[in-house]
Structures are given as C-alpha cells and as structure tokens.
C-alpha cells in the first residue's frame, strides 16, 4: 500500500473546517491563558493567604503533570460532579488554564522586576493600591513578557492537537475522520502537519510584528 496524495484534496473542506476550529481553540484558550495568567499572578503575589495557597497548589499541580492528564480530569472529572461541559469548552478551559499557569510564572517574575519607584510614585500621586497595580505596574509587567508569552502561545497552538483525544473536531480529529474513510493515515496526518505548520508560521510572523511594535512604542 504505497502513498497516494491524490485523495487529500477530496477532504480539503473537512481539513479546512478542522483548521478553523484549531484556530478558534487557540484564540479562546490563548485569551483565557493571558487574562488567567494575570489573575493568577496577582493572586499569587497579593492575594489573601486563603486564596493564595490554593492558587499556588493548583499551579504546582498543573506544572508538574501532563496536559493530556489535565484534559481527562476536566472533561471526565467534571461530568462526575454533575458539570457536563461540551468537549470544545472543556478543551478551551483545559488548555487555557494549563498555559495560564505558565504565563502566571512569567508575569509574577516581571511584576517583581518593575521598578519600586513606579509603585511609590503612583501612590504618592494619590492612586490607591488597586489602581497602582491595574494602571501602572501590571501594564508594564505584562508588556515586558510578551515575547516569552508568545512562545507559550505557539506551544498552545501545537498542544491544541491534544483536545482531539477528548473528541473536539479540530484539525487532528478532522484528519482522523478522513483516515477512517480512506485508510490513508500517512497522507492525512502529513496534510494535518502541513496545516499546523502554516498556522504556526502565521502566528510567529504576527508575534514578531507585535514585538517590534512594542519595542518601537517604548
């Protein structure tokens, strides 16, 4: 059974749909990981110990275990306690929380590195503690870690393939569906890899532009 790539164009629409879902998941989980990362970072640094400790424990658990295991926990585990999330939502939450933890580590270090004078200056001008954090410290801290957070976004795009395992019809699952009809795994997985590569290149180019703009605005 040799290779025959001529069957691939017949399933072009299916792969394109899958690509669309992969992009949607990446954007959804990316946003969650961005804002979740900021929220975790602020809580871990400034929160009351009663919320700080659980957040730290959660971060520690999520950094030390595989993403796939976390997806199983969220998808099957929440059904167990009566929360039946659609696979797509479970996938976005799982991916988003996983990378929020990684982003949070970056942001925490960055917040601590913001010059103390910035904080003192803002307080002297009459801003409250919360205002100082929200308007002065966090914007600077987040901007400084855009490049490494961009790398996390690229990792997120590739790890989005894992949600196929809980049945989200993204690119990897679209390829699997085409394979179940044609019995041509090599061709379709390669086609899927090609699609991921294209999205990846586009994302990298976008991130580079963003970094240049941030560098220019300073």
């Amino acid at each position, binding site marked *: *059974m*040799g*290779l025959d790539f001529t069957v691939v164009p017949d399933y072009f629409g299916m792969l394109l749909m899958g690509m669309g879902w992969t992009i949607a998941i990446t954007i959804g989980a990316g946003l969650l990981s961005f804002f979740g990362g900021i929220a975790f970072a602020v809580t871990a640094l400034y929160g009351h110990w009663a919320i700080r400790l659980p957040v730290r424990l959660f971060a520690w*658990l999520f950094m*030390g*275990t*595989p*993403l*796939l*295991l*976390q997806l*199983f*926990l969220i998808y*099957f*585990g929440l059904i*167990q306690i009566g929360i039946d999330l659609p696979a797509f939502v479970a996938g976005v939450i799982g991916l988003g929380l996983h990378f929020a933890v990684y982003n949070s580590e970056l942001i925490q270090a960055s917040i601590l590195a913001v010059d103390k004078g910035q904080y003192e200056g803002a307080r002297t001008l009459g801003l409250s503690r919360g205002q100082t954090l929200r308007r002065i410290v966090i914007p600077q801290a987040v901007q400084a870690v855009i490049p490494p957070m961009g790398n996390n976004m690229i990792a997120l795009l*590739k*790890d*989005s*393939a*894992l949600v*196929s*395992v809980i049945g989200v019809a993204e690119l*990897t699952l679209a*390829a699997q569906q085409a*394979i179940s009809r044609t019995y*041509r*795994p*090599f*061709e379709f*997985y*390669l086609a*899927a*890899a090609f699609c*991921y*590569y294209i999205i*990846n*290149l586009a994302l990298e180019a976008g991130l580079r532009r963003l970094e240049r703009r941030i560098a220019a605005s300073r």
Partner: protein
Amino acid sequence: MLRVYPFFLEAALVTVHLSVLTCILGLACGALGASMRLSRLAFLRWIAAAYVSLFRGTPALIQVFILYFGGPQIGIQLDAFAAGTIALGVNIGAYMTETIRGAIVSVDRGQTEAARTLGMSRWQSMRKVVLPQAARMMIRPLGVNINALIKGTALLAPISVVELTQTAQRFIGSTYKPFEMFLLAGILYMIFIYVVGQGINWLDRRARIT
C-alpha cells in the same frame, strides 16, 4: 481503590523507561543536529535548520501518529512503544538541537580565536576549549527540555502505550473516580520530575566553576 496501586506503579515504571529512552535518543539527535547547524557545509546547516523548524513547528502528537499509523504504508512497521519512543525522541531532539547550539554559540568568540592562534585545529579548539565551557551552560536548559519530555510521554496514551496517563484514563473509565485517578497519576509524575530535577541541580552545582 487499593487494587489499582500495582497497575499505577507498573505504569510509572513504563513512563520512566520511556523517558530514559526518549532522553537518550533526543540527546543524540540534539548533538547531531547542533553540530550540523554549526557545520561549515551549507547543505548540512540547511538540513538541520529544516529539521528543527519542521519538528518544532508541528504538534508532537501528529508526529507520533505519522510514524505509528502512517509508518506501515512506507514499510516501517513498529509497535506502539517503539514508534512512540522514536517519534518523541526525534521531536525533543529538535528542541535539544537549539539548546545545545545556543550554549555553544554563547561561548565567547575570543576563546576560539585564542585557541586557534595557539595552533589548535578547528576540531581541537572545539573539543578542548569550547565544548567543556558550553557543556556547563547547557545543563539547566537541557533540564527544561527533559522536564517537558517526561510530561510529553503522556502523548503515547492515545496510541495505547500502557504508561501513566493511559492507565489513569483506563481506570477513570472503570472506577468512575476521575479525581483520585488524576491525583494518583499526578503524584507519581511529580515524584519522578522532582527526582530528575534534583539530579539536574546536582549536576549543575558540580559543573560550576568555583
């Protein structure tokens, strides 16, 4: 609950076994890739750059699937364990290529120039002057790669390698205790990662020039 422990312990050993093999293969691919990236021959540099870009630019899961499910079509018939180990090893090798290359190029150029001026050949200056310094610098970043690799072995659950995540998944299905199964597998992963992390810290401390 008690009857699942032996299965988890056995699965943890499979995860350790997988990680060790993947790590060895990854380091070999990384060393080869890095030396090609630094080669004087343009086509070797080009091949290594393509290797890094393609394997880092696509999901590891897809790479595992291509080798395991697609392999037989091009005459490569491997069982799930072998196919998974090879795919993950070559994948992490692409990341290690960049780690190793990064450490080598971060050694001050003056070191090579001085060695060459003293009459050493290109290879001698690399082996006796640059590599010993680069090796110290790559321990920590390679540790990060190894940490990722250990968690990455979970990707072999979908091709039914009986490692920790697959075992947790199997028992979630049969016991309906997802949180307990997750915690059990999670704790075993964290113990393994902790031990490996301590080993890397120890190596890093020993390698420091005091």
